């Protein structure tokens, strides 16, 4: 479980940006998480909640948008994984495995390079500031 240390980094970055912009409250924190990253969104959200207690981000909504894996093949194909094929692979219990198992080029069938889907991005925050005017 490494969600706590990742949540620490997210909390620090969010607070630094919020402060820089004179925030009195952080309303939303929006993340983008690749489906192939080894991070659990629920655990991450819980850790962030614990860390943000008694801070201006205490009541922030923690939103996680999941990003599908994307591929690049030597035949020139670039794109996301074949959703149809993932459904065919539903016998696999783990979603991660279902994705990894279909990492071949939908055009030529060769194993493709994973170019996206492993990221963890703090996309944006919504903050409240006092209107000085």
């Amino acid at each position, binding site marked *: 479980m*490494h969600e706590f240390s990742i949540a620490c*980094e997210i909390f620090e970055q969010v607070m630094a940006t919020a402060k820089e912009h004179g925030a009195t409250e952080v309303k939303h924190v929006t993340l983008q998480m690749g489906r192939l990253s*080894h991070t659990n969104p629920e655990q991450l959200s819980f850790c962030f909640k614990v860390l943000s207690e008694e801070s201006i981000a205490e009541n922030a909504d923690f939103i996680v948008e999941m990003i599908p894996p994307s591929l690049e093949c030597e035949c020139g194909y670039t794109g996301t994984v074949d959703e149809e094929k993932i459904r065919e692979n539903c016998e696999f219990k*783990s979603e991660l495995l279902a994705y*990894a198992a279909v990492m071949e080029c939908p055009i030529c069938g060769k194993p493709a390079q994973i170019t996206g889907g492993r990221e963890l991005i*703090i996309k944006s*925050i*919504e903050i409240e500031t006092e209107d000085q005017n």
Partner: protein
Amino acid sequence: MFMLMHVIDMGHDVYKANDKVAEKNKKKLDKYQVFSVNVMGAIGSGKTTLIEEVIRQLKDKYKIAVIAGDVIAEMDSSRFRKLDVPTIPVNTGKECHLDAKLVEKALDEIDLNNTDLLLIENVGNLICPVDFKLGEHLRVVIVSVTEGDDIILKHPMIFKTSNLAVINKVDIAHAVDVDAEKMRDDILSLNPNVPVILTSKHDWESLETWISFIELGVKKSQNR
């Protein structure tokens, strides 16, 4: 007084921040022509033992240093020190993996001018180390037959992102009712181009294959 709402775009990638430090580590290692190996694998897979074999066989030919990462790193570190190689223990505390910053700090304590090969033993598990590059030249995953022959498909990403896979303790595969060949096939189905080595510490020939793979990397680094 009114309250105003703003949306602020951040675009800060937590893993990319680690990747940047890893890239810096790699450049530093390249500068000193040090070949570095990130050894990953579960608790009890044989990481420490296989690293010890590399040290025993190569320490007279090359200058070796070790970074031993663990929740409490002292035990493994003392095993490596017994072999007379400089060893930096990195206690990760509550953390389940090494990251590039921890390695960056450890590199400051190593005499890189006097190092040809840096062996980095990661914390024992097949999940957390995957997303954290360290600046290594070779990513090795070691899996033992005692983990069961379904272990590979349960942890696809570590096998997909490694440059070398070792299936260890194959001498006791029969006793634990495991088919090592199935394990090899599963690895190749996830990562068709990865070299797979089957090892046992009681089979010298298999250890030689493992050690020669590491030596090949050292030689390549020195010729760069």
